[in-house]
């Protein structure tokens, strides 16, 4: 066996269409090493976009995809996708080529083309593969048979903002993602995206303290986004009960969750999805914890909460209410019966004020008060009510009392407005509802006769040195107190945990009653026992509790798998924009005001417990959401959803474009072609009249991989009447092309046959000048097309206008001489061939001559030879060709190239 003398030779093939593929395969079969440059994500060129091919009507995919696979398997061919030549230098007989490799931001070694990244991506773009007639995601695989079959991320520019919102959110909700969805009207997608990391969207959409808004980078320009209200909007568009249950593979592991508050339920939710068998215990008659019993109806309708919990139950979680641990069941027994435990009993106990007369009837602690109201008990408050405290609970109590019909409600707070921990907008609402706040005041005694309250004695305070919490400590002012007549007092000075029951399994809570855990994993000192939420932190926010629950769930799953319990990788802290960045962005994005959340009028709301916030209208929501800076850019917004979904960690946003220098002995060019853009032909109304499309668009429309899955549809209906116009942008001086494009006559005939095969009794007209069916079997194909009923009209239409039904085509039939007016549903323009965009650049870097139309110049006796020795051209690069001719010229180019490198 003799040796292959060409192993050392390298040839560059530019273009991955059928021409390039043919050339590359021939060269490879001769033993040459081939590097194939493809500008796009996949080889296949124009041909793979076709539905069928003339005249045999066999499908393009059938005939081409085996070839593409051949290329990918051929050891002598290396495909460089997303690549193009930047510069070419003659080097001896060969060339040195500088190649630009656009990055995919995907580790192709890891990517398995499973496609989960695309499903989650919130950025919807136009699919080039479908001639922009259909959508694709920013991270995508252009079509199922793509070679290389790897995803790539379409990242055009860096995100203008720092996405501080996501970092600030304890559960890292994909804020920019769902804002993008909302701004483009994909409300359900928005909801699903929120749902992906949050089992209580409807809760957080209402009562979250929204740390995201605090850090929102847009806030540095004008106002922060109304992130919470937009979440609320998304939630309102979707009914949780219609949510379907994912496929869950059971693990047969049993987990007990103690406390059915946000922490406990979130944990249960995640564990259930992991397939564990979860039971939740709660002392109270209904699940939901503080969400259920502390937050008043007018802020969070109970129905919403029930739905969310309902879904968690549908996941298979058993919730056992009215069961107090330590009383009804002993924790030790639970520890025996279950494989793991999560303790999230929260901080259910109101703190006493610790002053005289607190035991008088008429004095009640806020938590108990709210619980009573939320449990629907008949609660009586007096005429004059004083609420002691400055937190959200206090505010809730006050507003609730007002709604219960008390004439005067006062808030008594020992510091000033600035130190009030309650949410700003809550305080606003409070004041609007006519509740007065008495600052720098503290009760020192409650008094009354017959055991029932009649008034309280207070003293004035002033602010002293800051305390541990950083707030200035109030100190009493010397001097006489004063008294306020009240007939009921509600104290809301904070809450405490109840953790005595944990001693049953030998846990020792801290002095303040909280449980010590590893904050990153939720692990307690005892194996298999985890805790989190208020029971660890003391009273805090819903979303923190959810986060705690999720952390624990993750750890518990690891624990049950017997793996090491390590925390999820930490996220960076929220970043601010620098001054210069802000200034820069101000220029790009003119200031837009935040759209306020519509609310009920005061007089309407104070009389009942109906929800106050009404919610955005779709228009308002889209407008507000589109203020998000991230959403303003083209392409990938780097929201990180794909990273979350990719299970092999193939996504890598740190990748960068590359520029490499390679040496080749010869170059074969197969740059392919573009199609004439008929917009300039006003008379045909392309782009203005609906139903006027180009041949290539029709090709996608009829292809099974196309936007309609192969159904020929116009506005969702099946068109019946078609008009084809040939020689659009060919044989036409004005459009700058005197030449004949050689394929339009036949692909029109092909389209006609496709229609005849798929649509019953269609009406088909064709305008032509000469029908150029020159190839093998073409003439016969053209004849059958006519016989099958297509009406060929010699003559070019004057204009196309809107008709009462569809479109009106005016054309002079040159054979009969008469002017005809024909009504159709769809007009297909057989657009001609144009040199590929960027061919000038290609030619200039290779100093190639081009002909008057811009095609690469080659002579007819040495068809693939260019003016540069060693550079050969094939396919449409040097002028219009049909597929067989392109294949032939591809082979010819390969042969010439072999001759050249063999000299």
């Amino acid at each position, binding site marked *: 066996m003799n040796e292959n003398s060409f192993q050392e030779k390298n040839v560059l093939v530019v273009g991955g269409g059928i021409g390039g593929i043919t050339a590359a395969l021939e060269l490879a079969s001769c033993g040459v090493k081939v590097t194939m440059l493809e500008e796009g994500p996949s080889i296949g060129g124009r041909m793979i976009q076709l*539905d*069928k091919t003339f005249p*045999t009507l*066999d*499908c*393009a*995919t*059938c005939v081409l*995809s*085996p070839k593409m696979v051949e290329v990918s398997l051929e050891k002598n061919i290396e495909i460089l996708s997303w690549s193009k030549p930047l510069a070419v230098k003659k080097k001896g007989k060969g060339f040195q080529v500088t190649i630009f490799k656009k990055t995919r931001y995907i580790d192709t070694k890891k990517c398995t083309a499973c496609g989960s990244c695309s499903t989650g991506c919130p950025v919807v773009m136009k699919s080039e593969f479908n001639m922009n007639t259909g959508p694709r995601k920013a991270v995508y695989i252009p079509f*199922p*048979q793509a070679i290389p079959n790897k995803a790539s991320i379409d990242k055009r520019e860096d995100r203008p903002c720092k996405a501080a919102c996501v970092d600030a959110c304890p559960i890292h909700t994909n804020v920019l993602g769902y804002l993008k969805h909302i701004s483009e009207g994909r409300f359900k997608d928005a909801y699903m995206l929120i749902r992906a990391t949050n089992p209580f969207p409807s809760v957080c959409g209402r009562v979250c303290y929204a740390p995201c808004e605090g850090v929102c980078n847009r806030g540095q320009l004008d106002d922060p986004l109304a992130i919470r209200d937009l979440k609320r909007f998304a939630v309102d568009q979707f009914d949780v009960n219609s949510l379907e249950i994912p496929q869950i593979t059971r693990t047969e592991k049993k987990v007990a969750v103690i406390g059915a508050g946000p922490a406990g339920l979130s944990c249960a939710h995640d564990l259930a999805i992991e397939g564990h068998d979860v039971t939740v215990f709660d002392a109270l008659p209904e699940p939901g914890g503080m969400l259920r019993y502390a937050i008043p109806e007018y802020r969070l309708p109970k129905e919403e909460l029930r739905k969310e919990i309902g879904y968690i139950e549908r996941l298979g979680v058993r919730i056992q209410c009215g069961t107090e641990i330590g009383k009804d069941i002993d924790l030790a027994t639970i520890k025996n019966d279950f494989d793991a435990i999560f303790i999230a009993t929260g901080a259910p106990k109101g703190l006493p004020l610790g002053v005289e007369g607190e035991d008088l009837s008429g004095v009640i602690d806020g938590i108990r008060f709210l619980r009573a109201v939320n449990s629907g008990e008949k609660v009586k408050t007096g005429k004059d009510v004083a609420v002691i405290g400055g937190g959200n609970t206090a505010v809730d109590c006050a507003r609730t009392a007002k709604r219960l019909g008390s004439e005067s409600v006062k808030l008594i707070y020992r510091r000033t407005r600035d130190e009030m921990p309650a949410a700003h907008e809550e305080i606003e609402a409070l004041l609007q509802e006519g509740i007065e706040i008495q600052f720098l005041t503290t009760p020192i005694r409650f008094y009354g006769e017959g055991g029932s309250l009649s008034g309280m004695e207070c003293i004035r305070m002033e602010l002293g040195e800051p305390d541990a919490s950083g707030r200035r400590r109030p100190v009493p002012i010397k001097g006489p107190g004063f008294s306020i007549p009240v007939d009921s007092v509600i104290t809301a000075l904070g809450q405490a945990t109840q953790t005595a029951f944990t001693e049953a399994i030998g846990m020792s809570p801290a002095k303040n009653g909280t449980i010590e855990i590893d904050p990153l994993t939720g692990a307690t000192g005892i194996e298999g026992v985890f805790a989190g939420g208020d029971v660890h932190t003391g009273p805090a926010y819903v979303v923190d509790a959810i986060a705690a629950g999720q952390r624990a769930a993750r750890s518990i799953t690891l624990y049950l798998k017997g793996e090491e319990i390590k925390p999820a990788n930490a996220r960076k802290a929220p970043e601010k924009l620098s001054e210069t960045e802000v200034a820069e962005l101000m220029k790009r994005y003119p200031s837009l005001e935040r759209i306020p959340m519509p609310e009920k009028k005061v007089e309407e709301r104070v009389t009942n417990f109906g929800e106050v916030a009404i919610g955005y209208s779709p228009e308002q929501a889209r407008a507000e959401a589109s203020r998000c800076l991230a959403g303003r850019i083209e392409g990938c917004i780097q929201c990180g959803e794909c990273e979350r979904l990719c299970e092999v960690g193939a996504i890598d946003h740190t990748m960068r474009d590359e520029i490499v220098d390679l040496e080749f002995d010869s170059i074969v060019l197969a740059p392919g072609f573009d199609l004439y853009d008929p917009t300039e032909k006003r008379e045909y109304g392309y782009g203005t009249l609906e139903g006027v499309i180009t041949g290539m668009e029709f090709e996608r429309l009829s*292809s*099974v*991989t196309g936007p309609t*899955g*192969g159904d020929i549809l116009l506005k969702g209906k099946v068109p019946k009447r078609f008009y084809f116009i040939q020689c659009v942008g060919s044989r036409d001086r004005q459009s700058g092309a005197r030449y004949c494009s050689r394929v339009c006559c036949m692909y029109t005939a092909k389209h006609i046959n496709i229609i005849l095969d798929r649509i019953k009794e269609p009406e088909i007209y064709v305008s032509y000048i000469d029908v150029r069916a020159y190839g093998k079997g073409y003439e016969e194909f053209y004849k059958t097309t006519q016989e099958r009923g297509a009406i060929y009209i010699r003559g070019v239409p004057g204009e196309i206008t809107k008709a009462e039904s569809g479109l009106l085509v005016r054309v002079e039939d040159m054979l009969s001489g008469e002017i005809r007016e024909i009504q159709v549903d769809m007009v297909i323009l057989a657009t001609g061939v144009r040199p590929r965009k960027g061919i000038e650049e290609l030619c200039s870097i290779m100093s190639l001559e081009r002909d008057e139309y811009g095609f690469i110049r080659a002579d007819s006796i040495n068809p693939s030879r260019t003016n540069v020795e060693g550079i050969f051209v094939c396919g449409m690069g040097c002028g219009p060709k049909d597929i067989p001719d392109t294949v032939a010229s591809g082979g010819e180019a390969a042969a010439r190239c072999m001759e050249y490198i063999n000299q």
Partner: protein
Amino acid sequence: MAEETSKKNPEIVGFCCSYCTFKASEMAGSLRMKYPEGVKVIEVPCSSRVDPAFIIKAIVEGADGVFVSGCHPGDCHFIKGNFYTRRKIAALKEMFDALSMKDRLRLFWVSASEARRFIDKVTSFYNYIKEKNDEREKA
């Protein structure tokens, strides 16, 4: 044999040529088109590889239906294979007809891009067989 299977859902065995129909079935999958689970396909290089004996075996072993599918006549990757297939299957059909079970064998041409056609073909076949079986159930 058939008697047993008639109680449960139909079992359809399909022979698909790897160049056209199997490709179509792949695409049907990647486009998430749905067809009954009872349909299972065997990949053969060319429909002409299908020995009628296979079909008889499948039927005798309890398949409720068998289909053979390849490239459209003239498009055969091996140039002429499917013309022979057409003859063989036509003959076998005649034999099945004589034994009154013609409707349990089908032959169709599906090219690689015709995922939808593939779905339509197998689904209608499946449903047809199902009807037949249910009728037999009643009787």
